[in-house]
């Protein structure tokens, strides 16, 4: 019964990988990726060297790392804390209602989220109206480099924390209830139970998700950044994904953008691999 799964995986995940060969070619649209007549122009690592030597390399690389690290630092623990809090609620209807409302933002389209951000943080928006009551001059935050990180990370957290907490809630559900009963007998209060039973119980899940998050350190919410991007914040906001979009899709440099994508994926793979080894040696928990 594994055969259909393997076939699907092979057809849609592995077979298209041959397209990555254009990273090592000077690919022209309409030409074959592998040409029997030998028309393919192979250039080796030229595109990788061009990317590393590009004047935008440090900017896009730095911005990508910075935004991903900020997302990790400020965003990783929020679903965990939320799951812990939800787990402690005894009133079922309130618990379900809260969960429903926090899951909803995840399903709002990125375009709508950015439009909401622009509206709320614009000079005439709600945020500026509030701050102007305190005597602060209105600032168009979406055009302000100093506010970009906050807007990006906060909107990411708002959108995803509810949905991401599902995994932790599910992990908590699998903890043996007799442990809690034994803890009550031993005189543990709620906080003790959370610290000594719940958190250790979901620790493997936390570690696995942390490994996966570190593995996507060079990824970012490209669609959201693309919608928010403008000349005023480009130095803070331009990431590898948006650079690949501008250079690859808009300017038609497919080989170059494929090389940049491959470069990113290789680094992500090394990060996942490395984090997995460290985790296995230190905590005995790992992906493989």
């Amino acid at each position, binding site marked *: 019964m594994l055969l259909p799964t393997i076939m699907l995986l092979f057809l849609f995940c592995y077979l298209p990988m041959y397209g990555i060969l254009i990273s090592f070619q000077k690919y022209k649209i309409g030409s074959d990726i592998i040409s029997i007549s030998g028309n393919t122009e192979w250039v080796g690592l030229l595109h990788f060297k061009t990317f590393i030597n590009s004047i935008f390399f440090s900017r896009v690389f730095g911005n990508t790392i910075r935004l991903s690290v900020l997302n990790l630092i400020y965003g990783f623990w929020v679903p965990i804390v939320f799951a812990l809090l939800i787990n402690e609620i005894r009133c079922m209807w309130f618990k379900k209602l809260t969960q429903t409302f926090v899951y909803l933002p995840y399903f709002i389209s990125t375009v709508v989220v950015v439009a909401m951000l622009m509206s709320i943080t614009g000079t005439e928006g709600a945020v500026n109206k509030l701050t102007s009551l305190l005597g602060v001059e209105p600032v168009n935050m979406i055009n302000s480099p100093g506010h970009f990180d906050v807007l990006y990370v906060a909107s990411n957290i708002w959108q995803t924390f509810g949905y991401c907490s599902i995994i932790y809630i599910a992990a908590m559900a699998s903890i043996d209830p007799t442990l809690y009963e034994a803890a009550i007998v031993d005189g543990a209060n709620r906080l003790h139970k959370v610290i000594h039973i719940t958190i250790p119980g979901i620790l493997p899940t936390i570690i696995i998700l942390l490994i996966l998050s570190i593995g996507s350190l060079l990824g970012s919410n490209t669609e959201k950044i693309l919608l928010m991007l403008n000349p*005023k914040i480009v130095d803070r906001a331009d990431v590898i994904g948006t650079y690949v979009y501008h250079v690859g899709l808009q300017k038609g440099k497919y080989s170059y953008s494929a090389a940049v994508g491959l470069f990113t994926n290789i680094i992500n793979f090394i990060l996942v691999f490395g984090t997995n080894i460290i985790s296995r040696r230190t905590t005995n928990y790992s992906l493989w």
Partner: protein
Amino acid sequence: MKRFIALVLITLMMFGVLAGCGAKDNVQIDNNQSSQGNSADSTKKSEPTKITLLMTETGAEWNHKDTPNFKQIQKVLLDKFNIQYELETALGNEFETTVTTRFASGEQLPDIVNYRYPSEKLNELYKNGLIIKLNDLINQYGPEVKKLIKMRPLVAVANGDREGNILRLPASYIENPQHRITVLHVRNDWLKKVGMDGVKTPDELYTAIKAFQEKDVNESGKPDEVLTGFGNLDFNMTIGSAFGVKYMVNAADSWYTDSNGKIYNTFLTPETKQYVTYMNKLYSEKLLDESYITQTGEQYNEKLYNNRIAGCPGPWWDGVLNSQRVSDKGFDVEYIPLIPPLSATGKPTVYLKDLGGYGGYMVTKDCKDPSAAMKIINWGYSLEGSVMNYYGESTLEGGDYYKKTTPLEGLKLPDYSMEYTEKGKAAIKEEPLLWTKMGWNAEFSPKVLIGNADSIAQEFFQAFGVEKCGLAADVQFNKKGLKDAEFTYGIPAVNFVSPTEEQTEKWENYTDLWIYMDEQISKFITSVEPLSNWDEFVAKCEKMGIKDATQIKQEQYDAYKKIMSGLE
């Protein structure tokens, strides 16, 4: 048993998926299809030939294919040539990405694509067999096309390669000042309120907008009257030209020539620095809308309907259209175009848009019947086709919305000239975007309209009426203003032949340079980058290879001049 059934179903599903991913169509492209015959409508097939055009969608309320004019043109092409004409569209702001990705896939391309690629890209598409050359088709099926090329050899040069292959044909060839000039429109009623009689220089423009804010001419209680637009391009043409900036679009395409025929990039000139300094001053003092680079149509409309727009660049008719739209919201408004254009140097100029035509119909390798595609283009270029495209009328005598024009005194109009009927006037008054709604002057069929300043003056005045437009609708003002604009102040665009393969390869190395230059200009204007770094900016561009890029353009320009001198 269950496992067996499941396996069979899954196998069928896999085959279905594989079939859906599909083999390439075996498309035979035969340019010498003699079965089509020589005359346009003598041969009728039992099944109509289906031809599909890929083009931009405006994003307005009405899609092109739902407009009455498109349906009319579809009917004509079916009756005349037995062609079933269909449209595929994509939104304008993402169209380049869409069409480039379609070409990159190389499969199931539409029959015709309407997009004006730069010449190096056009060559690449041709060399990789994605589009076909049109010379033979023009010779066999395109007498109207041949007529245009004979009249205007630049059409062939600007839309082909160095070997003389014609690779695309303009979707619109409109030789008319209205379509060649962008002007700055300002609020004439506000100028009167602040005691100014017109605006002739950038300093006067600055003074005017400052006065609008200080005197709160829109009575909003805050200094929110602003100059606005959609990005730098239109300001480059209207305010940049005031400082002597010749032709400034995006960095890769901003080239001009000095009096000795030497090519330079307009981004790096002292005049551009002056222009950028001025724009930075407007931006810093909040006289220029802070969201002018990124604003959407809705945000612009919001400012317009809230009576905040002191001025905006746009086509000739934009000011009048805006006047009408704001007046409908209850404000007494008069936008006027600034003619003569602003000038800081005492020599007002506007630069004229490229005469190679607008858009570009390319016939792709997957076109089932290239001769049918050429028949569509040829018919579009005919008087009948051009009139139907532009006015939606099926005869030169007109119909519901238009009738044959009675020229105003002293004007000499082209044959196709029409004016609104009473029904047309009422309709345009009720719906200022009537043209879009009806599908008039859209690029779903091509057209050639050789007009003059007289025809625009006629149309302008009669469309909007003096009571709505004031000065701008005055016939003599229009006629003189347009003639002045084009023939006195107008400077032609500089044209180039397509690059060689070696030049195209070298050009790939400059992508970062163009991105850097485009970004820096916006950063200088919006104060992200201090103007004191201008020299550093120029030095960095030189380090990144602007001189080599200029050499390439110089060679292309010299080759173009040689070809044109041979043709003329």
